[in-house]
Structure formats: C-alpha cells, structure tokens
C-alpha cells in the first residue's frame, strides 16, 4: 500500500512538471503569435492612416484646383500655396437696394466677414467686396439646391451676372500634415500628422495646374492636380 502511494505521488509531481513545461511552451508560442499579430495590425493601421492622409490631401487639393484658374494662385512656396478658395456660385436674378438678389448654391452660406465676390460672366473678371448677405425667400424663382439671397455689394454688376464666392486661404504642408489657413487665422490640420515635412511640399504652378509631393512613411508620392479652366481645358 505505501509503495503504491509513493509511486502515485511521484508520478503526480512529474505529471505536474511536464504539464507546466508544456503549458509554458504553449503560452510562449501563443504570446509570440499574439504579439506578431498585434504588430502586423498596428503596422497595417499606421499604413492605412498614412494612406488616408495622403488620399485626403490629394482629394482636397484636387477639389480646390478644379474650381480655380491659374490666376487664383496668389502665392506659392515650397511648403504652402495661397489661393482664392471658391465656396459658392450665384446667379443674379434681380436688383435690390444697394445690391442684387441672387440664386446661390455652395459649400456653405456666404459670410461677408471673410468672403469676396468675383464676377465670372463672359469677358469680365472683377472682384467685389461682399458687404451683406441675407435670405430673401421668394424674391426669385430658384431650382433645387439653390437659396435666394439678397446681397449688398460695393459695386453692383450690370445685367445678369455669374458671381463666385471665394475666401482667401492657404494650404500648408507642414507640421506633418496638410493644413488650411483662412486669412490670418491659425493653420488647421486637415489630415492626421503622418506626413514627413522633409519630403512633402508644393511644386510648380503652371497654367494647367500645380504639383505637390507627400512623404508618407518614407515613400514620396508625387501628385499633379489640374484647373478645370486650365490652358488646355477648352
């Protein structure tokens, strides 16, 4: 009986040691797998975020370029480009005291504090300060997506005119992100801070558009965006 008991106890200890060893091995292997998976996921996440930053920067700049002509680029340097950023289009539809009634469609409603107007009718290119903008429902017939507004203008355009609302803005490739600055305000990031400043920047501005480069995770992506009314558009 005693001998049997001792054998059982020794066997149990060996079993325990073997089990612990095996369990340790399994834990080491599984932990390794987990760590590798987490690293992979983290790297994929960073790559996706960087790609998203590059994609957002490209879409934003391409979208702005499509609304511009070469004359709307006010200044360009290696890390910034100052432009007229168009935010709305209006068609005059009647005369108002000190201004006009317009049918307006845009990204947002016009804001006299930061917006100006450019007359875009054929052959005319005139910049006019916007002094006031108020809703004027029913003053003109509008189509879906348009708002009727009464604008007070420093100069009233003659006849039916096409008026474009713009703000003075600047895009910067600095601080590891694409940033936008309205007037003298601060630079607000439009993308995650995943771009390297060393390889990111703006290139040449031509009559057709402009170029820029994005340094994403050590890889430089060169992009060209084009003006809808560029030299060869027509």
């Amino acid at each position, binding site marked *: 009986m005693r001998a049997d008991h001792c054998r059982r106890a020794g066997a149990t200890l060996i079993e325990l040691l073997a*089990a612990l060893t095996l*369990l340790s091995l399994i834990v080491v292997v*599984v932990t390794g*797998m*987990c760590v590798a*998976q*987490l690293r*992979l*996921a983290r790297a*994929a*996440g960073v790559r*996706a975020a960087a*790609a*998203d930053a590059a*994609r957002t920067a490209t879409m934003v700049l391409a979208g702005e370029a*499509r*609304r511009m*002509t070469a*004359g709307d680029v006010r200044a360009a340097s290696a890390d910034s480009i100052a432009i007229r950023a*168009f935010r*709305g*289009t209006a*068609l005059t*539809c009647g005369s108002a005291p000190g201004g006009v009634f317009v*049918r307006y*469609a*845009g*990204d947002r409603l016009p804001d006299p504090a930061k917006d100006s107007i450019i007359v*875009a*009718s*054929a*052959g*005319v*290119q005139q910049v006019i300060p916007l002094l006031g903008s108020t809703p004027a429902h029913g003053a003109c*017939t*509008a*189509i879906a*997506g348009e708002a009727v507004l009464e604008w007070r203008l420093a100069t009233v355009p003659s*006849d*039916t005119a*096409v008026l*474009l609302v713009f703000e003075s803005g600047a895009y910067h490739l600095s601080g590891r992100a694409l940033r936008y600055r309205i007037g003298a305000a601060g630079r607000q990031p439009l993308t995650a801070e995943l771009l390297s400043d060393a390889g990111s920047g703006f290139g040449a501005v031509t009559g057709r558009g402009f170029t820029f480069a994005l340094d994403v995770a050590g890889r430089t992506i060169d992009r060209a965006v084009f003006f*809808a*009314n560029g030299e060869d*558009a*027509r």
Partner: protein
Amino acid sequence: MSRRGAALALTLVLLVVLECVVIGTMHLALQEHRIGANRVASIALRLEVENAVRRALGYWSASIDSMATGPEHRIPIAAATTGLASASVERLNAGLYIVRGEAREAPPRVGRAVAQLLVMPPLIGADVDPTPAPLVAEGMVTVRAGGVVSAQAPSTCADSVAAHAVLAAAPGDLVIEAGAEMTGSGGPLPESSILQHIEPLLESTAFGLVAVATDTLIDAPFTGILVVAGNVTLGVNADVEGLVLASGTIDVQENVRVEGAVMARGGAVVAGSVAWNPCVVRQAVALAGLTRPRPAGPRAWLPAF
C-alpha cells in the same frame, strides 16, 4: 480538473484575442478596398457628368437660341451616354447660357457629381443657312463676260440645286453681261444670313477660319472660311474651296475658281467661276465650330455644388 478548465478557458480567450486582431486587420483591408472603389466611382461620375455637359453643346437647337431667360424655362437635353447623367440649359441673358449636368449612381448607392459650363450662343444660329446660294450680295452684282455662277451642286453633294444662283437686294441690282453664264435664277436676300454675323466672326479664332481686318487680295489657293473687314479681291491665281465673306465688295477675277459660296455686304463682280457647293461650306462651318456654343470667358467651367 480545475487546471484543465483554466487551460481551456485561457486558450479560448487567446483565440478570441487572435480572432479580434485578425478581424480588425481584415476590416482595415476591406475599408481600403471600399475607399478605392468609391474613389473610382466618384471619378467615373465626374467624367460622366462633364461628358454630358460637353455633349449637350452638340445638341444646340433653334429652340435654345430663342428660349426665354430664367430657371423656369430650362430645357433638358438628352445628352447623356448612360442613364446616370442628365443635362439642361438655362438662358441667363441675351448672350449667356449655363449648361448644367448631374450624374447619380444607380440606387441604392447615393454618389452624385455635378458640373456647369457657362457658354455663349453659336456664332451662326441654327436658323441661319450658311450657304443659301453661290453668290449673295447686298450691293450691285455684276457677272462679266466669261464669268460663271452656278447653282448646281456637284454630284458628290446630297443637295443638288440651290433655289437661286444669286441673291441680291433688288432685281435691278443684278447685271449679267453678254457672254456670262448663270445656272439658276436671281432671288431676294434672306431675312437672316451669315452676313449679319461678320463682326463676331472677325473676332473668332476658330479652326479653319481666317479673319482679315483690312482690304485683301487673295492670289493663291485657299481652303476654309475667309472673313474680310473690307473689300476682297480673288486674284487670277486664287482657287478657293469654302466660303468667302466680306463686309465690303468681292471681286472674283478671271480664271478664278470658287467652289462653295461668296457673300458680300457690298457689291460683287464675277469674271471667274463661282460654283455652289453647300457640302464644302457646311464642312468648313462645322470644322470651325461656328454652329456650336462657345465656352464663355476664362472661367467657363463654374464651380458646381
């Protein structure tokens, strides 16, 4: 017993963690794929809508030339190559139109693209026949001995015969000297003619159109549309295929061959040959795009929202 249970639970937890990591990675990959597909769809929609607007310019008609201003009078134009896009035109004032296009993805997707183009009406309206006769002149017309004016089109052209060989202000303005040959009769000036559009044509830089701002002598072969602010002389070496327009007089000298038409606000003297060829004239007008609307100014493509 309890140790085996702990190992199982631990394994299950680890498996769940691993599954979460794998699912997260797959989700990222799928998101990238979706973003890429959406980007492609967005570019396709933009191209579709810009094409619809461009194609709409090719469907310009007399009803658009005479439409009233205002959004309530907009005319839809069946210019889309697919059911995704539509286009319409609105008149802003006498000389300005806006062509709008919109393309939408098929439901249940909700992608949308818009474009708008500011245009001026065609230099030659849809109601103007660019070649009513081989010779049109608002002043005195003289066909000299040896001169030929033919209303007979060549057999290669679908139009066979013009209604008249010469269109003049009054019957007395047409003089046909002995020895001259005129195939076809004389007739009155049309109400609307290309002669009324000489000034804008002189400003045009259209392909195949040569505009000259002073009296001109052409003494070499010429093909296309010649617009002269003043008097034009087609010298003995001239061989013209196309349309000659002059705000002054036209002198077609001996041995000169004109195939197409000549039109003058002043008088015309023909000692050479003027043969009607509406096909040549229409081709020249079409090549120059004179019957199509023109993008208006340096901001013709307007920002669209």
